[in-house]
């Protein structure tokens, strides 16, 4: 009786190459392949080269992808930690402001980032959506974070931009809400008050104004720690878009929390074009006059000038000088052109003779101080750095201008206006400067997901291909 072992041996005798096996050449003496005549050795060497190439390719892809992921992760880690708020952080002035990166964090994620040196606008993106143009704050350390301003009214075509307090502690903005009656105008966010975001505590405090048809937000002005919100209370509005109302002020002392709503427009000074001066503001009032206004509405007339300023007057920190751009036609007409920078002593009832200050480089080019007529964004006075040095705005940003020599140096390079004009805290103009690197938040974090998915697909593809090339 045969065993399985015996019968397997008998069946193996039918194997190709066995003596008498049908249809097969005698393969015992030849190193040749049935797939052509190439030797097995050469085919094996070719397989070896293919495997080595495949291994090198997979290793290169892995190195590339892991390197990219590492770079992204390190980049993300680098930009993630925005330092916590420091209430006592002294203002410092970056030598350049940038558009915030679209993927910069928001204050809802990071918490408050402390007193802000500046506000800039930028496109904001999240993992799933495009959030539009929003306002970002720049901390004293040069970190950028989008300000998650709760219930900010943003839709008005000429809406009031958020305003940074002189010390960078608070950001004021019009508050969106629902009027009690039929709103006016019918479209867009309805302004129903004002809100203040505390950059140190992260709290938002609201000061609503009772309104039937909504408010026409006119301006937000900081007088030291006091916010003055000037608004029009709509009384009627027509289909053609015209409306009637009455102007009023809301005065809010952030240091005490006291709020006065509905201050009569006629009994509180108009703060149009107000510029900061310590804990007061300076307002140009007539052709050659200006006044200094305190938070309680007290007005102190300034010395009369012998030139007509264009809209705004700036008093030096020590109070010894005033500066302005001269009105080119002397009539304070609403043209964009600015006259030359003028500076006058501000002691006594009458200011000293206004002296035109021309930049040293412009003087060397032979320009006449008398003939200077510039656009509204060129050499416009924006403040004082100290009693001897003005801050002016030129084509690239803010620059210093020494009033005695005309020497000028770049102070802060500014990004383009994006939603809002870049806004520097008034006190920061006198702060020490530092070299500011570009902010993070530029890289799309979704690339990590795409790269991860791509890595999986690549590895799966490589594994599949490798399995196919195996003989």
């Amino acid at each position: 009786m045969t065993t399985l072992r015996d019968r397997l041996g008998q069946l193996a005798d039918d194997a190709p190459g066995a003596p008498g096996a049908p249809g097969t050449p005698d393969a015992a003496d030849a190193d040749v392949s049935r797939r052509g005549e190439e030797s097995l050795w050469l085919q094996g060497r070719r397989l070896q080269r293919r495997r080595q190439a495949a291994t090198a390719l997979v290793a290169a892809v892995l190195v590339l992808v892991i390197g990219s992921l590492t770079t992204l992760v390190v980049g993300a880690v680098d930009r993630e930690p925005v330092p916590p708020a420091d209430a006592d952080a002294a203002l410092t002035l970056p030598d350049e402001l940038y558009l915030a990166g679209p993927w910069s964090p928001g204050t809802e994620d990071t918490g408050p980032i402390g007193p802000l040196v500046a506000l800039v606008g930028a496109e904001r993106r999240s993992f799933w959506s495009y959030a539009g143009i929003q306002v970002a704050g720049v901390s004293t350390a040069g970190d950028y974070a989008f300000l998650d301003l709760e219930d900010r009214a943003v839709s008005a075509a000429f809406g009031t931009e958020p305003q940074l307090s002189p010390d960078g502690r608070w950001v004021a903005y019009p508050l969106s809400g629902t009027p009690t009656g039929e709103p006016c105008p019918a479209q867009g966010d309805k302004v129903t008050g004002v809100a203040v975001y505390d950059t140190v505590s992260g709290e938002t405090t609201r000061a609503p104004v009772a309104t039937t048809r909504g408010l026409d937000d006119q301006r937000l002005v900081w007088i030291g720690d006091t916010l003055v919100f000037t608004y029009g209370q709509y009384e009627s509005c027509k289909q053609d878009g015209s409306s009637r109302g009455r102007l009023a002020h809301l005065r809010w002392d952030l240091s005490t929390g006291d709020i006065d709503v509905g201050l009569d427009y006629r009994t509180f000074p108009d703060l149009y074009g107000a510029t900061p001066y310590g804990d007061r503001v300076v307002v140009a009032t007539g052709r050659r006059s200006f006044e200094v206004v305190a938070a309680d509405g007290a007005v102190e007339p300034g010395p009369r000038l012998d030139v007509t300023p264009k809209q705004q007057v700036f008093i030096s920190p020590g109070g010894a000088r005033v500066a302005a751009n001269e009105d080119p036609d002397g009539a304070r007409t609403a043209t964009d052109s600015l006259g030359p920078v003028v500076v006058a002593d501000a002691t006594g009832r009458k200011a000293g003779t206004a002296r035109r200050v021309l930049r040293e480089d412009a003087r060397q080019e032979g320009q006449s101080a008398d003939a200077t007529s510039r656009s509204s964004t060129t050499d416009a006075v924006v403040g004082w750095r100290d009693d001897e040095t003005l801050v002016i705005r030129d084509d690239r940003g803010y620059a210093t201008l020494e009033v005695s020599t005309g020497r000028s140096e770049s102070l802060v390079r500014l990004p383009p206006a994006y939603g809002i004009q870049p806004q520097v805290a008034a006190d920061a103009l006198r702060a020490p400067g530092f070299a500011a690197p570009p902010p993070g938040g530029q890289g799309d974090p979704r690339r990590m997901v795409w790269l991860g998915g791509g890595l999986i697909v690549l590895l799966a593809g490589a594994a599949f291909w490798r399995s196919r090339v195996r003989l």
Partner: protein
Amino acid sequence: MSGSDAQRADFEEFVRARRRALLRTAYLLTGQHADAEDLVQTALIKAVPHWRKISDNPEPYVRRILARESVSRWRRRRWREISSDDLPDVALRDPDVAQREDLRGALAGLAPRQRAVIVLRYFEDLSEAETADVLGIAVGTVKSQARDALRVLRERLPALRDELLTSGR
């Protein structure tokens, strides 16, 4: 003679000496002449990249590739080929031929891994541990695969002696 040439000569010497033996095993693993030749060629080609390391005793490595490739090739091919338990009618010349065809048909009805276990255990005379090592599976798996395979073979080949079918080393 360079190192590479020497290795090639060594390889070709091995092929000439052992190809026929490898074909016998491959034929039991595949049941087809063409498949057996392909399988042996594949195993030899795959041995070339490692030849420098295995040249002292290449046969275990080549047989390991042979056994594993017989299983994995079937996995890669199974969606392209239609397997059938019914063998085509052939003109049988004599009882011995008929017996061999019965065994070939019975082996063809086994799963590839079961077939490999049977060939390694009862043709190559490997132990369960050696069979597990060659196929890269657990000893327990070898036992269960062998048990299942022998049950199928007993059903299809009643003439085989039961005591041998159930015995192991």
